[in-house]
């Protein structure tokens, strides 16, 4: 590079004239790095972002309003469309909340099936992250590998629930009998499909291989490290102030995992570690997710061993009338704390349903974290957040 002293005088004059004053750059809502329809209005000087204003709401579907005119059973179909890469995990806290309000005891086997499917959803969601994050940094090979491997997980979910993305499998009082279960075939069909556990264990071996693949392809990659280490550092106090949860919070040194602290699903019977890092940068957010896939594999293997036999459902009234009361029910989703504040006035529909979606809080830190960053880093930082716009806009 020619230094300024070595430039010809006229050349130097031109480069001074070309120094740009602040300008406004509009990114999205159709930009590939925005994972859907997020728009960013950035005030920049040169390559540096002075101020950034995310514009959301292009996908606002008004689920909180719609829930007020839906029965509890209908709402499960709505909520697994919030974060569509981990549809099953969204249903769980809602159903657990309704069951708490109604005082329904859920058969143990159903709880374990919920746990296994939640962890499968976690792996599938993290594999999407492990494919899209390198892609945004310019590497397209991991995408092929990870999406190929995710098919194994989606096949398992489809086997059990009938849906790849929108399982709609939870029922108040248990999980749906497989294959529809008409009155004649009910007895045979009220369980998981034959050979499910065997195939699950086989898929877990494949997932271990994908973790090794991603380590070879991405973790040690010099370009990835250069573009993510030390980029977008979030200190833990800022993370807490903006309500970050899940891997984004754990990468900032706060080992907070609802699977450990909240009393839900039989996680307390399973031996697993909370993956956390202390750097708080984009690379740590990536490493936490890779580590969590390994933990989920561990959890699923143990769950397959521990799952008891028994019914999948307990008897509940056909028309659910939920007694009056207010409950907040939360769960550790692939992206963080996912919760529902259910206000029931004793009827078939909730009086109010507040949906605490994870990506909404996780993204609210963008104006703070992107201030002063370079534009190419914007893509690396946003990619490391692993958000889904359906989860932001609800």
């Amino acid at each position, binding site marked *: 590079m020619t230094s300024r002293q070595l430039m010809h005088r006229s050349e130097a004059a031109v480069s001074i004239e070309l120094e740009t004053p602040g300008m406004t750059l509009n990114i999205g809502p159709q930009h590939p790095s925005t994972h859907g329809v997020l728009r960013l209005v950035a005030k920049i000087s040169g390559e540096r972002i002075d101020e950034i204003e995310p514009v*959301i*709401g292009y996908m*606002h579907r*008004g689920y*909180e*309003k719609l829930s*007020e*005119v*839906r*029965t509890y059973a209908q709402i499960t179909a709505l909520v697994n469309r919030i974060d569509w890469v981990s549809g099953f995990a969204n249903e769980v806290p809602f159903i657990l909340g309704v069951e*708490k309000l*109604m*005082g*329904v005891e859920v058969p143990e086997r159903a709880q374990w099936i919920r746990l296994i499917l939640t962890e499968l959803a976690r792996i599938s969601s993290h594999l999407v992250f492990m494919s899209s994050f390198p892609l945004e940094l310019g590497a397209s090979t991991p995408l092929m590998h990870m999406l190929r491997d995710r098919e194994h997980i989606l096949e398992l979910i489809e086997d059990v629930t009938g849906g790849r993305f929108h399982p709609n499998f939870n029922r108040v009082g248990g999980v749906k009998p497989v294959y529809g279960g008409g009155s004649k075939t009910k007895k045979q069909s009220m369980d998981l499909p034959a050979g499910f556990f065997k195939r699950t264990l086989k898929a877990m071996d494949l997932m271990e291989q994908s973790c090794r693949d991603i380590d070879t392809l991405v973790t040690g990659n010099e370009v990835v490290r250069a573009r993510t280490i030390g980029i977008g550092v979030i200190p833990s106090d*800022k993370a*807490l*102030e*903006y*309500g970050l*949860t899940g891997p984004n*919070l754990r990468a900032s040194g*706060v080992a*907070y995992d609802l699977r450990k*602290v*909240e*009393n839900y699903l039989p996680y*307390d*019977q399973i031996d697993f570690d909370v993956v956390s890092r202390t750097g708080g940068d984009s690379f740590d957010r990536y490493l936490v997710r890779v580590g969590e896939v390994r933990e989920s594999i561990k959890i699923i293997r143990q769950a397959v061993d*521990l799952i008891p036999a028994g019914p999948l459902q*307990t*008897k*509940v*009234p*056909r*028309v659910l*009338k939920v007694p*009056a*009361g*207010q*409950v*907040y029910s939360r769960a550790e989703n692939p992206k963080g*704390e996912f*919760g529902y*504040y259910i*206000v029931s*006035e*004793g009827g*078939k*529909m*909730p*009086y*109010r349903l*507040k949906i*605490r979606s994870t990506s*909404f*809080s996780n993204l*609210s*830190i963008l104006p*703070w974290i992107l201030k002063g960053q370079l534009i190419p880093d914007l893509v690396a930082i946003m990619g490391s957040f692993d958000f889904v716009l359906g989860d932001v*806009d609800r």
Partner: protein
Amino acid sequence: MSDQPDTPPEPETDSIAEYAAAITERLGAEGYTVEFDTARVFVAKDKWVATINEARKELPLFSWLSAIDWSRETEVGEGVAEPDELEERFEVMCRLSSVTDARAINFFATLSKDDPTIGSLTATIGGAEWHEREAHEMFGIMFEGNENLIPLYLPDDFIGNPLLKSFPLIAREVKPWPGDVDVEGLPSSDDDDGGDV
């Protein structure tokens, strides 16, 4: 499955109730309730900001902020059980949570419908901005001190506050929900009421 009868669920619930009682006293709040492991602490409107800031010293995670519209006249959904006894009001709620254990409190403040104004948390909690903007556009609640109460989800020229109970759901007005028929028409709803639950 064998090695963990050490934490049965009852003490867990108790500890949440105890904690809610303790923090209510420490913060000088107006009262608390605990149901279904969900602790609600009621705060006077003018002490809202100070109380939340104080509580964040022990519950550092700002989880979310939202509101409830308690309304006698509902255009959508089901109304409250005893509308005559209901006081028309907004409730603003904010959830703070510990990051070391299961402790978490939902703070509630009541706002009258004539003056739906409350202090903004944005001075100390940056993450509250989006939540307050959402509550502002959805319920019409004013957050004093939040300079940026522009619409978050809704278009700039949108008129009305969609999450108010008095705000009709246009789609439902135009075409009745087909699922409604199923729900009303189920034959066995009376027999099942006294079921297992």
